[in-house]
């Protein structure tokens, strides 16, 4: 209760903006019940003491992928929820639909209310896909989000200003240094000595595998990547299903190299594993960046609170915490990371990635052509 009194001013602000949104959303499709609650709260707010009790704290519903809130090692979900709730006098509800972002696309297509205000965990490729299929916008422009200018310019991936990156991973090779020394270049992977040595998750249906495929497109061009893959296939590359299929086969010693993330040693160190068995290789000194973004749903019932949340996530301390708990790299230049973080989490000398405009209209063709070549029976 102390913190409520202390945060009276903030509470009033939130409640007011909440009511404002209710007014705007009144003609909209959803949430009349919630709007009512918001107005009641405002009505009784002048004293600033009953915000929480009268209408209940405002609720922010955030959709995400399940690993962000419920993974067996660490995930930032619980920490984010606790911190955000205590500071903003709001309730944060995580939603983790099994088909992730597509769940909301389905809702939009079927014209069913989207009960989430924001989504956390979309990448460039997702955004391209969503924009391609939907006539009605799924996400709104993020607008005035605190700390937005701190995001590294190379990571900004939405030209329309809806998605704001909150972290990034770099796809790299992870190899068992006790049995092999990974080649330094893409061409090196074609050497006979590495025959059957590389496992990768499926480029067609996993984010990790697709990033690796895109890296080969980046490297060899849209005209050349299929030839490279043909050679790779001749050298017995193993394309398995999920990231977990690939990583667990690699852990089990089925092959000494796997396509995964450059933060692998962070996990290895936590489990007291031999770091020599978890070495990182950036092929051609490049790492394909896979920034993860967050965005506010068009028609969200709490857009202002959602914007507060986005700003909260970009704060230096929160950025550092997310990076550590999600085992990725922060998206901002101001993140406060533990000093030893860089010892285990490796950043590539040269990050590369495709922009939204480059992927738009191309990525589905690249993937399909790859499938047709690789799985031709």
């Amino acid at each position, binding site marked *: 209760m102390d913190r409520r009194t202390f945060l009276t001013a903030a509470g009033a602000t939130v409640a007011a903006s909440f009511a404002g949104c209710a007014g705007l959303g009144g003609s909209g499709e959803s949430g009349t019940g919630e709007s009512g609650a918001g107005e009641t709260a405002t009505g009784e707010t002048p004293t600033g003491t009953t915000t929480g009790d009268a209408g209940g704290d405002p609720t922010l519903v955030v959709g995400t992928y399940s690993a962000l809130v419920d993974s067996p090692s660490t995930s930032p*979900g619980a920490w984010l929820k606790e911190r955000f709730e205590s500071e903003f006098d709001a309730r944060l509800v995580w939603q983790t639909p099994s088909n992730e972002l597509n769940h909301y696309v*389905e809702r939009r297509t079927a014209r069913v209310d989207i009960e989430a205000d924001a989504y956390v965990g979309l990448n460039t490729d997702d955004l391209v896909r969503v924009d391609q*299929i939907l006539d009605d916008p799924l996400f709104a422009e993020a607008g005035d989000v605190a700390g937005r200018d701190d995001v590294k310019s190379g990571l900004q991936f939405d030209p329309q200003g809806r998605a704001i990156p909150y972290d990034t991973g770099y796809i790299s090779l992870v190899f068992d240094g006790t049995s092999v020394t990974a080649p330094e270049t893409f061409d090196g992977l074609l050497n006979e000595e590495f025959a059957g040595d590389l496992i990768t998750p499926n480029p067609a249906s996993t984010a990790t595998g697709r990033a690796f495929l895109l890296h080969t497109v980046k490297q060899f061009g849209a005209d050349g990547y299929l030839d490279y893959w043909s050679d790779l296939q001749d050298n017995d590359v193993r394309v398995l299903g999920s990231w977990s299929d690939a990583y667990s086969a690699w852990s089990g010693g089925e092959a000494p190299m796997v396509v995964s993330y450059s933060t692998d040693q962070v996990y290895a160190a936590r489990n007291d594993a031999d770091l020599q068995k978890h070495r990182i290789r950036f092929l051609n000194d490049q790492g394909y960046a896979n920034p993860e973004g967050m965005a506010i749903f068009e028609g969200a019932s709490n857009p202002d609170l959602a914007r507060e949340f986005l700003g909260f996530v970009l704060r230096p301390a929160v950025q550092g915490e997310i990076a550590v708990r999600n085992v990725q790299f922060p998206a901002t230049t101001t993140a406060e990371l533990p000093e030893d973080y860089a010892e285990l989490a490796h950043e590539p000398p040269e990050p590369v990635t495709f922009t939204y405009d480059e992927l738009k209209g191309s990525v589905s063709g690249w993937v399909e052509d790859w499938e047709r070549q690789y799985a031709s029976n």
Partner: protein
Amino acid sequence: MADAIDGGTEGDDGAPADATTSGDRAHRDSRSLRGRLERRALVALAAATVGLLLVVFYYPVATVFVDSVLVEGRLTARVFFDILSDPFYFGEPARLLAGDSLVSVVEGLLSPDRRLGIVGFTAYQAALSTVASVALGLPAAYLLARFEFPGRRTLRSLTILPFVLPSIMVAVGFVATFGQNGTLNAVLGALGLGRVDLLFTLEAVVVAHAFYNAPLVARVTTAAWESVDASAVETARSLGASPLRAFRDVVAPQLVPSVLMGAALTFVFTFSTFPIVLALGGFQLATVEVFVYRLIRDLEYAEAAALALLELGISLGLLYAYLRYEARHTVRSRGIRPLARRPLVPPSPSPRDLLLRVGLAAYAVVALAVFVAPIASMLLASVSGPEGLTLAHYRFLVERQTAGASFQVRPWDAVRNSLLFGVASLAVALPMGVVVAVLTTRGYRGRKLVDAVAMAPLAVSGIVVGLGLLRGLVFGVEVGGTRLAVGGAVAIVAAHAVAGYPFVVRTVAPGLDGVDRTLVESARALGAPRVRALVDVELPLVWPAVVAGAAFAFAISVGEFSATVVLASGTSQFTMPVAIERFIGRRLGPATAMGVVLLVVTSVSFLLIDRLGGDDVGF
């Protein structure tokens, strides 16, 4: 529809069905409410079954399939034509539609570098998997049906276990058993034999499919073998037939329909295989379902739906062919006195006995490698850490239970949900299955078509079902300004029941078909309503089949994943397989620990189901 079928039913039973007699009977029964209820019960059950199937299956699935013919608001066959004429999917025959001559297509098919296409390859691997499953399942059926040994009943109850194992667990078990550093190579190494490289091949996938499906073949065949009438065999023998001859002429004809049923179901299941192919084979072995998944993930619905429909058509076509065969080959008289089991260790072994035992021992070694070793490897993985044995993964489960947030999966909740949903969906699937079995074993034109369509839940792509349930049930339909939607526990139970009831039909229908019709007719003539004759006369005669169906229905519910995650209203409704999926991380310990929990819970459940079902029953 139900009324019409019921009408056909009465006619077929030989019971007088003309208006006058029905009227008389109605008059008689109206005296008691119970009589009225019983008389309507079958019709009501049939109507409820059809209704449930429409709401929880056919309508949801249709919301996805419609995308294949309705593209941007216009009706078209273009998507189908494109797939059917694409050699990538349909191999050489696709060129026919593309305009190539029959001669060149046949030449292409005969040439060594012919293209099977994704669909052709999928059928090819399913056929191989079916052969392997039958080859591994039949000796097990022989052992379980014809020999007596300690633990036989327990073993038979547990043969259903592979059915409930999530593919990720099977993948873990197989890598640990057949991988480069797996148990098999360790054993071969210790024996001074060379190493084998089994993983990421078609062979590994086929063996994994046999792991799942050989037990199915074994269960249905065991049941058929146990209902062979001993006196028929004895008669043949007394007429001078050799044991082999008696087997060929008397026993085999009664087994073949069951073996074929197991084979048909295996083909259908492995034809729509998905995660296991990519986990143990690789993308070069991609099946139709792999593409359905990718296309739906990328929101390319038209092509995904058309592909899934073609996949369904092929599966249902095969099931239909089997059902036509089953209808012609039902064994009318079922055994009253089963064949006596022989002791596994004979008191005074003859050379023939010894040879048989050697064969069984060889089979036992193979079965240990294929079925037991992967499961044992899962157990081992659940207690292994970087520094040897550990209980850390189980501690994780306890911690998640006690300290997990509301949006995280709690292990005990998952166990409880699995059991609740399993029991509830069994209670729904049993009457559904029995009713459909009754309706499809009565004589009317096209009944096998009805039967095949009723089997569709077995054959529709799981990915399509998941998406359909989201669109059809979770989103619901708007009626007069309000949205009618279903979700949560009730919907999960309904979906599980729909997924499991075809097994009840398949196990119960052949038995019902074989029940002596005069028994039912006598009951009806004595004034018993149709449902009373069913409950008092027919079901007791086929009780083992009912229990077998119940076990399958329960197993399907416990193993179900895609409908559960879509319909659950929150993490609090997640089941054991969902918990396993959520616990997958860089280290597989937590997921395998949950997998072991699943193994233990389901083992106990199956032992209970078989025990509660009565003495010596079950498939």
